[in-house]
């Protein structure tokens, strides 16, 4: 149901890759995450098999949201952390959820917003919801 992008599929060298790294900005072969989070309403960065990520996905799905999921593994973790640090200003904890191009937080923030009722308006703002 959801778009789970494998990191390698995003590399410009592979067919069907959608992310194009701007020249000189990143190491060759890595994905431009800045563009990724800007282009997608909801993006979840999580370690493969992480159970907290599973919970985040369930919560978002419950609102009818199909988040873009970026699987973080040993190969790309360094690069992902670097890029996200530059975007956010600090090293992120996984799972990391971006809504409307901005870092929303981790499971705790998503859960808190879900309970307080703030999540839905934010999702709607980011055009993640169709209703």
């Amino acid at each position, binding site marked *: 149901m959801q778009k789970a992008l494998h990191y390698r599929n995003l590399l410009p060298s592979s067919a069907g890759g959608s992310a194009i790294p701007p020249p000189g900005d990143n190491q060759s072969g890595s994905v431009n995450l800045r563009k990724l989070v800007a282009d997608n309403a909801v993006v979840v960065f999580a370690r493969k098999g992480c159970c*907290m990520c599973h*919970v985040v996905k369930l*919560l978002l799905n419950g609102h009818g949201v199909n988040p873009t999921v970026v699987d973080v593994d040993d190969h790309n973790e360094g690069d992902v952390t670097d890029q996200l640090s530059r975007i956010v200003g600090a090293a992120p904890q996984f799972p990391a959820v971006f809504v409307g191009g901005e870092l929303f937080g981790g499971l705790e923030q998503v859960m808190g917003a*879900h309970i307080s*009722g703030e999540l839905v308006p934010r999702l709607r703002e980011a055009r993640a919801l169709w209703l």
Partner: protein
Amino acid sequence: MMNSTSTQFVPSRRMGIYEPIHQMSMWGDFKGNNCLDASTPMILEVDPKLDNQSEDTSHGTVGHSNKYDQEASKPPDKVLRRLAQNREAARKSRLRKKAYVQQLESSKLRLIQLEQELGRARQQGMYTGSALDASPLSYAGSMNPGIATFELEYGHWVEEQDRQLADLRNALQSTETGDVELRIFVDGGLRHYCDLFKMKATAAKTDVFYLMSGMWKTSGERFFFWIGGFRPSELLKVLLPHLEPLTEQQRLDLGNLAQSCQQAEDALSQGMDRLHQILGAAIAKQLGEGNYLPQVGAAIEKLDDLARFVGQADHLRQETLQQISRILTTRQAARGLLALGEYFQRLRALSSLWSSRPRESS
């Protein structure tokens, strides 16, 4: 002067060691009064000394003679009343003793129950058995010190909780308590729950399985357990009837909250199930080779995730409490907190009442 006070005080020169009641009893006896309660020990103790004293009194001063005459001609109903008070005091003393013994009995049963639980926990637990003393009394000392600290702090937390609830109950029952004062109670109550969640987070770092299995709670509470504590949706169901009357908006908001809670719980439960499987699979990998360190080592890494799960569940509990407090008026929130606290008190009492119930003799 002496006459009026003679019934109250014993002249120290003569009979300083005797209490006034003893004196009266003695005089009752001296007068040949047969209304003494034979079962009251203090009267009996005084008797042997009676003869000596009566000899002395006959040689006493005029003042004393006067006093004794006064005593002897005292209306019998006052003496009877004093004796009745003796009996009453003795009866109450017997009742207190009986209550104390009953309390000892139920504590003994609780101790037996605890020893059994500890025995089971030791078998199932993560501690290396050989390092532990077999005696259950030293178990708490030789187990993880972080956990021993937690149990101690939790005991204090419960005591403080009981105190806060008693104060809150009084405040709500008094017609003079205003919203400002109630707000202080509500904020204090919510903070107290936050304190508990912080304590649990620290304890989870030392032994997450302990947290997960609710070992610090009574067995009754464990029956209602969900990921290290109470189920938030359950909490709402308990509170709702006690919050009436509610406005339509409040009803709507609480309904939404109940739904969000349920969704969050379901998501966390499913995440837990997954972690359960992953952890189990990690431990079960490559059995039969005799070497367990790599697999157990890999499993231990996952325990961090487990600790985070308990943290997330506690966070959900905290958010739910705070959202409830936002939706309600101060007075409603105060009533809600009281109802919630009493609910948990009853759960805590459930186990000890069950274990100390009178059993049929077989």
